[in-house]
């Protein structure tokens, strides 16, 4: 492809393949190819529950029914509502089949695709009205408050087909930038939009580019950070799996803005589907002339490569990531010099996160004012969150900055399951903190979270209920940072280890009140003296739980009790002799042989009740899970 006219032709020619998914308005004057599109989620979540088999079965059943010219099956990226996977959507009706199984495929083909009658009993029940009619997906609680910018194409297009991306205005932003704007214009638009780094730090993207642009060097680089290490965060993976071309397009735009001709995407090796789709996308873009020499005849060259990470959390830190691309142990470097001056291979480099890049093409196409119109005063646009933990709708949501935590958890996320009480939300992963229930009306943006000792992080949002012990949670994150500390600087390497030992002591019931003060002091020391972001933020989970849940620490230290019933050393399992019917299932399942029969036969029972020897008990809880009579309690 050599010209913008060719790109536009390709867009027009392919529109008919995607228009069925675009809603009634778009369909009015369109001439769609075929009658229906069946979209099946091919994200990691749904692939893990065998959506591949559903696609294969669909294709063969459709062929058998003679529908192959009328119905096309598209394997897309993530739809977001992972809790209901595998998910399948049929357009133009927009019927949302949840927990789809291969066995149900023939029925859907027969009744819906052939007979035109939606199998309403297989749909996500929230989309079915009481009279049996179907509610559109954007009217459901999960979707109605969402605004999809970064996830715009995820779950809409086939990520392995460049033509579908082009049909949805793909590469138009790159074309516009290369033919109408100077690099300075591009940087000004990004600056005016107010876009800030979505990887966690929140540094203004436009300023980052502006700092790098004037630095002269024979080779400059654009790096995309896809080393999504926060456990429980999967937004970057979903973008790469669902819309890889938008990252390629955005990186090329960044390259033009700062004068770089080479890009690297550093992806976690644990994301095989993302790596595969991105590789396909890069190949397709090269073949189409959208990467390579003289793109759109503008004289601008840009190409890129993928580098795989190998499971080191610290490599999410920008200087460590660059060290790793160079083939070394991924240890961070002191800054300054900043990467904008001396980054990858000692050359000026701009590094942005996947989600940051995913916003760029839309900002170019729709203007800085449009983007700046969303969000709060200092945090513009939208943010993608991965909802996880004790929440009804586990999945991926994109919402305007400034949406309250209450809306995210209770309205969009459907609240805590099982009638349990919301206790806290954890954001920012091992670098972040907890937002307690009493601050549930906090409007979520960069600055509000920082002001309560939390941080946005890359967007993992883990919900915790009353069964979660906050001391154990802090310990969990510290175990993570101790494991992941690269060892280069002492405050982080030794400090986090000492912090973990103190937490461990507390969960064993051996802590003192002085330990709490010493922990706080050590936290401040680690924060102030560590070399990189990993160490500087590692104490956050401890500090924020100490701040909001101090009474739980005190319960562990003074009363020697774990209120949530998690810390094993402080737990005791007991059998209520009057509820126990003496069936012995507990004793049979006990791995430690800690349960024996007593002489006591409760009134109305035939067998003597059982008893746990707490000296032998390993507190695994298997007895409690297996007791059908709820005779076993822990406390």
């Amino acid at each position, binding site marked *: 492809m050599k010209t913008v006219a060719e790109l536009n032709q390709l867009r027009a020619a392919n529109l008919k393949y995607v228009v069925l998914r675009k809603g009634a308005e778009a369909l009015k004057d369109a001439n769609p190819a075929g009658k229906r599109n069946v979209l099946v989620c091919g994200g*990691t*979540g749904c692939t*893990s*529950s065998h959506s591949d088999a559903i696609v294969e079965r669909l294709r063969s059943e459709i062929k058998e029914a003679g529908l192959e010219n009328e119905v096309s099956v598209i394997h897309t990226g993530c739809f977001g509502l*992972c809790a209901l996977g595998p998910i399948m959507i049929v357009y133009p009706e927009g019927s949302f089949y949840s927990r789809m199984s291969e066995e149900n495929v023939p029925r859907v083909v027969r009744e819906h695709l052939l007979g035109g009658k939606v199998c309403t009993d297989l749909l996500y029940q929230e989309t079915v009205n009481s009279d049996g009619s179907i509610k559109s997906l954007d009217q459901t609680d999960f979707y109605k408050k969402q605004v999809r910018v970064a996830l715009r194409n995820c779950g809409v297009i086939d990520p392995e087909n460049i033509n579908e991306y082009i049909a949805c205005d793909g590469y138009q932003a790159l074309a516009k930038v290369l033919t109408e704007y100077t690099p300075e214009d591009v940087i000004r638009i990004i600056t005016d939009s107010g876009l800030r780094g979505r990887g966690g730090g929140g540094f203004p993207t436009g300023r980052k580019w502006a700092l790098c642009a004037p630095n002269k060097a024979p080779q400059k680089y654009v790096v995309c950070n896809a080393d999504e290490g926060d*456990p429980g965060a999967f937004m970057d*993976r979903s973008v790469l799996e669902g819309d890889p071309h938008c990252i390629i397009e955005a990186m090329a735009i960044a390259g033009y803005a700062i004068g770089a001709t080479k890009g690297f995407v550093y992806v976690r090796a*644990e994301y095989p589907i993302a790596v595969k789709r991105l590789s396909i996308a890069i190949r397709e873009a090269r073949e189409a002339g959208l990467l390579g020499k003289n793109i759109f005849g503008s004289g601008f060259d840009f190409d890129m490569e993928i580098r795989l990470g190998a499971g080191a959390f610290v490599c999410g830190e920008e200087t460590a990531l660059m060290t790793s691309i160079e083939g070394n142990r991924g240890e961070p470097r002191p800054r300054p010099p900043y990467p904008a001056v001396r980054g990858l291979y000692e050359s000026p480099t701009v590094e942005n996160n996947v989600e940051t890049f995913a916003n760029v093409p839309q900002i170019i196409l729709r203007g800085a004012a449009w983007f700046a119109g969303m969000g709060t005063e200092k945090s513009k646009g939208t943010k993608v969150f991965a909802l996880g933990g004790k929440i009804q709708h586990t999945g991926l949501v994109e919402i305007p900055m400034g949406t309250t935590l209450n809306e995210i958890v209770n309205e969009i996320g459907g609240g805590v399951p099982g009638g349990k009480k919301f206790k806290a939300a954890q954001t920012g992963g091992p670098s972040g903190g907890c937002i307690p229930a009493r601050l549930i009306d906090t409007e979520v943006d960069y600055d509000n979270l920082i002001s309560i000792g939390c941080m946005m992080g890359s967007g993992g949002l883990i919900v915790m209920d009353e069964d979660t012990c906050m001391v154990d949670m802090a310990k969990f994150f510290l175990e*993570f940072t101790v494991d992941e500390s690269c060892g280069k600087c002492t405050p982080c390497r030794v400090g986090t280890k000492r912090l973990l030992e103190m937490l461990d002591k507390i969960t064993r019931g051996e802590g003192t009140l002085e330990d709490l003060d010493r922990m706080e002091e050590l936290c401040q020391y680690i924060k102030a003296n560590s070399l990189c972001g990993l160490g500087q933020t590692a104490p956050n989970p401890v500090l924020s739980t100490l701040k909001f849940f101090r009474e739980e620490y005190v319960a562990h230290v003074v009363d020697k009790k774990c209120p949530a019933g998690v810390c094993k050393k402080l737990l005791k399992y007991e059998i209520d002799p009057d509820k126990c019917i003496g069936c012995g299932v507990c004793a049979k399942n006990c791995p430690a042989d800690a349960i024996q029969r007593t002489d006591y036969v409760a009134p109305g029972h035939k067998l003597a009740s059982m008893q746990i020897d707490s000296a032998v008990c390993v507190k695994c809880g298997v007895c409690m899970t297996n007791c059908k009579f709820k005779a076993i309690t822990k406390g």
Partner: protein
Amino acid sequence: MQKKISNLPFKGTPEQEAALRRIIADNAHDKSRLMAVMQQAQDIYGYLPIEVQAIIAEGMGVPLEKVYGVSTFYAQFSLSQKGQYSISVCLGTACYVKGSGELFNRLQEILGIGADECTPDGRFSLSACRCIGACGLAPVLTVNDEVYGRLSVKDLDAILAKYN
């Protein structure tokens, strides 16, 4: 992070070594591809014993201590053998709050091995991993490439029975 080093003898085949040398030849021009070579070597052998690291060091023209340094830095590189069935329990946050810690402890009890160890018959090895991204199915574990989700301790025996 301390890495367990295999105490079983290295049993590489000439075919494996030939495959490794081909990969090295393709990448030796660029020393920054060291990690990519090590990743592919691990695909061939299943782990990176010191014998394999020595071949890589010589072929890529870097000191063995650098290869060893990289292999011990990144969690993905394993210095110990995996079992025929490699069980990996996700201990990411989303799975952890849904009880994957209990799954991991119980598996250690059932199999009688610790983390990153292999049963004496070479059938099962056990490790913990960080978030495979299937948070919607939490808690999850994988056996080789098969993902099992929405688990409780009760499900473990049935899963293991499939591989016995």
